[in-house]
């Protein structure tokens, strides 16, 4: 069963994504240029015919494949694994042992290894993904060491430190050849498979989701993304591909020992090639490998044993220099420029922008209860941030929440969007008489509660349109329709002229609108707006008020936290006032502003007395 899962994840992705005109993609200059350059990996060694050159190219293909597979986790998902050789070793040992004990061809054995690696990847990834940067890296090193030591300890199975020799039976069935060029064909095939999977992920929803989770996990959850789920998908695919390459490489070297199969140094090298080429880019890992491996192999070839340590020294020095001078890697730094040159070549590239899919129809009678909270209480140590808050939200209304700074408004939002679990009390989404309480922030988003963040949470390295697409993907998994939806939303909020600008370059007013846009793109039933007017000019505030009204008129129910009194009073159908975590007043805007407790909360008791209230 596990075998089934792994092969599915490794191969299903490209099929699902390449759906619109798979062959026409070949006429795109970037695609055919990449394929021509790739084919050099076969043509150069074929022309040279020297076994040493072929060996170097097999090594390049293997390491480029390993690095490309690593990049899916280390680059796209931003999880710096320094123990990736675990999967290489598992693939290698599984394949070799299946040949030895069951006479199973490596062509099948490698898939068994990939399946096992995928299972191990889930077991390592699930508990470790909550760890931050260096600690995740350390944990992966620890797993690598544990498995290496176990491989040495159980020498009855693995041959221990003495090693294991792959049974040498010639022919394609057994993946052992006299003509080295056959190895190169397989290595190249595996590299191509890995690149296609990596490319497909990059250009599919999963790729966008991984970037979103890497940049800001909270904002990703608010867009309905389960961070653990997408990271697990990435690590499973990456582990399976790494394992396949490990299986092949074992057949190529014909000798397995724990020290090289589960090597920390090699794990670091794989990651290093990606960094040099460009983390999180499709072609970066390949480029890094092509540049560095031949130098190291050539040094080893010319200097022999006297070069002991030289290639590692060069690797390490290059790694430090790259971090100091080109942290984006080669593709990250120069990729855009080269891409523009390539785009000047002839070929079909413009695809018609697809029509945006129809807006989701929101059904239900106005005035019915949509959301209710019962005695919501949130304690932070000794502080009661919300104190017995019971409220309900009616379909079609705009509910304003006001209160002094520190009153607990945002804490309330965090609870009704699933980011905080209340210390006591409950809340429920009501739909068709059924009450449900989702279990996580992303589940709240998928249940139709969209929220913005008071402190804006843009995905800084993504463009405006990509930021909005992250939200749109929730209901439109297909990239083209998500893009169309995002374009529509960008026009609605007035960001359409900034679509291709990276979000980190936007001023605060535009970032606030981007928050709203990303949330609107999830097509929520209930929209939670946390101080979206702060930092907006007078004119923009007016536009925002109109936008919120238009959104409400399309059937969305709105709760807005706001300090801009004029705006919130004119906008809201009903107002709730919170002070020190408690609801102190509730009602229509006119009544609330005259309430003595409200005036006291905002302006103090003295002022209330002076006004004779």
């Amino acid at each position, binding site marked *: 069963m596990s075998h089934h899962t792994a092969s599915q994840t490794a191969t299903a992705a490209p099929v699902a994504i390449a759906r619109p005109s798979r062959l026409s993609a070949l006429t795109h200059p970037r695609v055919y240029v990449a394929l021509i350059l790739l084919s050099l990996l076969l043509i150069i060694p074929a022309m040279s015919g020297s076994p040493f050159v072929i060996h170097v190219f097999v090594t390049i293909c293997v390491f480029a494949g390993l690095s490309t597979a690593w990049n899916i986790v280390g680059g796209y998902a931003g999880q710096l694994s320094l123990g990736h050789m675990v999967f290489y070793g598992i693939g290698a040992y599984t394949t070799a042992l299946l040949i030895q004990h069951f006479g199973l061809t490596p062509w099948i054995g490698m898939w068994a290894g990939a399946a096992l690696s995928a299972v191990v990847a889930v077991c390592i990834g699930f508990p470790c993904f909550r*760890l931050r940067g260096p600690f995740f890296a350390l944990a992966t090193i620890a797993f690598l060491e544990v498995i290496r030591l176990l491989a*040495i300890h159980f020498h009855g199975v693995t041959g221990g430190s003495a090693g294991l020799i792959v049974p040498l039976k010639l022919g394609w069935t057994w993946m052992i050849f006299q003509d080295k060029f056959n190895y190169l064909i397989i290595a190249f095939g595996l590299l191509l498979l890995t690149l296609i999977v990596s490319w497909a992920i990059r250009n599919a929803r999963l790729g966008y989701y991984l970037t979103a989770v890497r940049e800001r996990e909270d904002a990703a959850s608010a867009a309905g993304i389960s961070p653990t789920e997408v990271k697990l998908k990435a690590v499973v695919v990456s582990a399976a591909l790494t394992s396949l390459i490990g299986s092949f490489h074992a057949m190529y070297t014909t000798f397995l020992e724990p020290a090289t199969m589960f090597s920390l140094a090699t794990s670091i090298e794989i990651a290093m090639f990606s960094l040099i080429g460009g983390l999180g880019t499709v072609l970066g890992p390949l480029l890094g490998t092509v540049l560095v491996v031949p130098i190291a192999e050539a040094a080893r070839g010319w200097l022999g044993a006297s070069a002991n340590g030289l290639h590692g020294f060069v690797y390490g020095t290059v790694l*430090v220099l790259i971090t100091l001078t080109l942290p984006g890697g080669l593709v990250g730094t120069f990729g855009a420029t080269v891409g523009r040159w390539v785009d000047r070549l002839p070929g079909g590239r413009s695809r018609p922008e697809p029509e945006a899919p129809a807006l989701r129809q929101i059904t239900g009678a106005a005035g019915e209860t949509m959301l209710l909270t019962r005695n919501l209480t949130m304690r932070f140590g000794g502080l009661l941030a919300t104190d017995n808050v019971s409220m309900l939200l009616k379909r079609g209304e705009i509910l304003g929440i006001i209160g002094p700074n520190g009153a607990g408004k945002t804490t309330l939002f965090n609870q009704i969007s699933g980011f905080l679990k209340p210390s006591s009390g409950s809340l429920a989404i009501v739909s068709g008489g059924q009450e449900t309480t989702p279990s996580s922030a992303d589940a709240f988003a998928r249940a139709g509660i969209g929220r913005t963040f008071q402190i804006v949470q843009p995905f800084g390295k993504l463009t405006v349109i990509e930021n909005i697409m992250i939200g749109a993907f929730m209901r439109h998994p297909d990239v083209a329709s998500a893009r169309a939806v995002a374009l529509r939303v960008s026009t609605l909020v007035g960001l359409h002229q900034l679509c291709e600008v990276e979000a980190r370059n936007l001023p605060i007013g535009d970032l606030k609108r981007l928050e709203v846009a990303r949330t609107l793109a999830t097509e929520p039933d209930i929209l939670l707006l946390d101080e979206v007017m702060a930092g907006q000019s007078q004119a923009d505030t007016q536009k925002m008020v109109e936008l919120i009204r238009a959104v409400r008129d399309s059937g969305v129910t709105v709760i807005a936290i706001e300090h801009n009194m004029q705006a919130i009073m004119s906008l809201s159908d009903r107002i709730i006032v919170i002070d020190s975590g408690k609801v102190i007043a509730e009602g229509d805007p006119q009544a609330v502003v005259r309430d003595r407790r409200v005036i006291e909360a905002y302006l103090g008791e003295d002022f209330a007395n002076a006004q004779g209230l």
Partner: protein
Amino acid sequence: MDVLVQLLLNGIMLGSMYAIIAVGLTLIFGIVRVVNFAHGEFLMIGMYATYLLATKLGWHPYVSAVPVVLLLFCIGALVQRFIIQKLLNADEHIQIFATVGLSTALVNLALMIFGADLYSVSAPSARQSVPLGGYTVLSGQLVILACALALVAGLHLFMQRTPLGRAIRATAQNRNAALLMGVRVDRIYIISFGLGAACVGLASALVTPLFPVTPTIGSYFVLTAFVVVVLGGMRSMYGAFLGAMIIGIVDSLSGYYIAPDLKEVVYFAIFILILIFKPTGLFGFGRGTE
């Protein structure tokens, strides 16, 4: 019972060696907030330096401790000044890669210079058996224990009683606030990194009589030191000290009761469990997921 007591003693002796390394690692992580993956290679450099001083000049390793500590302080300060300082605002993965790269470069540099052979320093005075109420320890191990205690006590006094120590603690707690109060944070970082490396310098001089030096000796010790640091709660040197004792004892006991080649598996398993279930460390001194 006799065996158990002897094993516990061995564990404490081993633990005090890890303690010195781990305290240095904790200083760097707690103050500069960088995980120094090259820490083990600092140890390796110190051990080769001690070896060279012993063979070329005939210095006893304990005498070499002084110049080696100074050498490592300088290396640490230079690494901070010319590498880490430039990356303080870079992405976390870039910082990781920088120290990982440094580690790789140093291991291989040692391999180029010294080859893969084992070198050991003969210092009989450090290998004498000292009877201790029916049990025995090596004199060199007692020295390490004494130095570990003195190091933690000395650093405690330094951090609590001196203006520089206070500035370091302030920087560790809140870099920006310290900056606003006129603390020269860059300089504090250089000193802290130097101090962390100097601890390893001390450790390297002390362990050279007991362990042969190879280019990869660093990763052998430092992976354990990372386990210790995580166990001790990342930022507390007292936590690191206690954590080191625990790991020393676990090492000693599991080597005897489980299997000598599986003792690392035992404490790496502890490491992973602590990281996952109690990232603040055993004693709740810090936070690993922060």
